[in-house]
């Protein structure tokens, strides 16, 4: 996983609640067996017309948001299907941070496994940040995971909370599996006890 330390970039506003993972990447695009290449179909139902041309009303088809690295949305972002293709699509498009008042659980987890940082900030702040994005290409937002702050274009710093373990893994780009493998003796022990107590769980 790519480490996430600090990002300064263009932010795109998506002032919607309940942006579900079917909107982020519709199921018909989930047939790839790779993690790459989903970016072109990110928000496909909004980004493209039926004939495949771009819908210029959609934010990610507008300048400067075509180059957005941060997405700002409203409540319950990433609800619905567990598909990890949603953060893969965001990442492949170039978005490495999503800011919203709250996130659906599975999507939130999936982001951390892929170096996409989900930042929870109150709705009023998300609204302010969305206002900031209207200032055009020079309105860059910084997200500093080390210091746990979002920096507005005017320099105002907004602190955010994050789980310390997840922060550590993300700052260092660490793979969960390697970490867990260090607990192999404990897993062996658990299995031995469980096999004795509940043998029907073992073939």
């Amino acid at each position, binding site marked *: 996983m790519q480490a996430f330390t600090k990002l300064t970039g263009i932010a795109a506003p998506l002032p919607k*609640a309940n942006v579900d993972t079917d909107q982020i990447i519709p199921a018909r695009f989930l*047939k790839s*067996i790779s993690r790459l290449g989903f970016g072109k179909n990110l928000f496909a*139902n909004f980004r493209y017309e039926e004939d495949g041309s771009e819908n210029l009303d959609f934010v990610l088809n507008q300048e400067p948001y075509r180059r957005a690295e941060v997405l700002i949305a409203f409540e319950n972002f990433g609800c619905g299907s567990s598909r990890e293709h949603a953060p893969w699509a965001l990442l492949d498009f170039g978005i490495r941070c999503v800011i919203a008042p709250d996130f659906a659980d599975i999507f939130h987890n999936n982001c951390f496994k892929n170096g996409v940082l989900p930042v929870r900030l109150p709705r009023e702040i998300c609204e302010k940040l969305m206002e900031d994005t209207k200032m055009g290409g020079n309105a860059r937002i910084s997200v500093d995971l080390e210091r746990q702050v979002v920096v507005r274009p005017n320099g105002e710093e907004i602190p955010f909370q994050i789980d310390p373990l997840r922060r550590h893994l993300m700052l260092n780009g660490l793979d969960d599996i390697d970490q867990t493998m260090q*607990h192999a003796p404990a897993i062996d022990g658990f299995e031995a006890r469980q096999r004795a107590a509940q043998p029907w769980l073992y073939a």
Partner: protein
Amino acid sequence: MSAQKPRTLFDKIWDAHVVETLPDGTALLYIDLHLTHEVTTPQAFDGLRAAGRKVRRPDATLAVVDHNIATDDSRRTGIVDPESRLQVETLEKNVVEFGVPYIPLLDDRQGIVHVIGPELGRSLPGMTIVCGDSHTSTHGAMGALAFGIGTSEVEHVLATQTLLQKPAKNMRVSVDGNLAFGCSGKDIVLAIIGKIGTAGGTGYVIEFAGDAIRALDMAGRMTVCNMTIEGGARAGMVAPDQTTFDYIAKTPDGPKGDAFKRALEWWKTLPTDASAHFDKELSLAAHEIAPQVTWGTNPEAVLPITGIVPTPGDEADEAKRAQLQRMVDYMGLTPGQRLTELKVDVVFIGSCTNSRIEDIRAAAAIAKGRRVADHVRALVVPGSGLVKKQAEAEGLDRILREAGFEWREAGCSMCLGMNPDKLTPGQRSASTSNRNFEGRQGPGGRTHLLSPAMAATAALAGHLADVRDYQPKGPL
């Protein structure tokens, strides 16, 4: 030893599966059953391969194909869509390479992963169960802790048989009293989501309790737990009881003989202790629940079938007003319109929510001796090959075909617009599935969620209609 603190069903299963607790409170949680399918696993197996890792417990892992496949006869001659075919073939290669048990497409036991787990007796009380699919919550109906995970977590479970998890909070939703005629588990869960909203359960595991839940058969409980995720909770659960035990006793792969007796002793200790603490409680009166139907583009936008399309202008909050307007526009509705005026093009009875034998019986009971409206295409897609065989043994396929329904092969079908069964832009469907999101059943498709009996009713009427006006014509 001091008396232990009263615990919930969730607490008990959680405690029994903590391998280790890390300094920050994150638990390394042991996973008893890992169900896998073709869509969310290719990248996970690739990861194992790249790192030279094995599947730790192939015997605790089961693979099946369900999302991508056709549900007509074409499946017998191979998958037409090259990308779908590649995904299925990739799974078939991976299960051989990693030694994972697999149910092939043309096996009778093939079906939707959340139908076959309980049906085969693989999903059992007290287990931790995961799958790369959000509707894994279904298996909570067995009295298990079951939740959906992403592909990175699939890889983690394949490699280590564990997950890194923070404990969830406990919520209890009690539904008491008797359910009225024409209502089912689907109406209960839609009513609950209407009440708590799509994010009301975020961060919680929901235990469904009360005598209306106890009175549900296993299929009804699975429907309720299945849609828990639509209320934001990753897992829903029902305490195991005699209904659960009788169900397991009839499954092909469930424990038998002494193993069953021994398991039963443990299962009986699982229900929530009398004074256990819940962080949030909610109760509903079953008799107040009328047949439900969604009108908008998330499952919270639900009303009794007697309802009318909301008027966005009546909403004071600007953001909510805009959201309502978007839903009304997308769904092609007129504010104030009666829901029963909405003409449907397609009726879909199937999905991991409602494709079990009980669901098919409910649809057949309404359909018997009647005809699907001429302009409606109506599909019945059994959840598994075994459900299909059972329905055929009971003659339900004949009743449904005679009424004008298509009788199909098992799979996810029109739930998600990823296989050949899809809506075309602008088509309106009455669907027993779980998500009415924009484009979920195909780009531009308009989905109304409802129960199998209500879906059958809509097929006959040609528009959304009240099942209470369609009494069955005699027994099945």
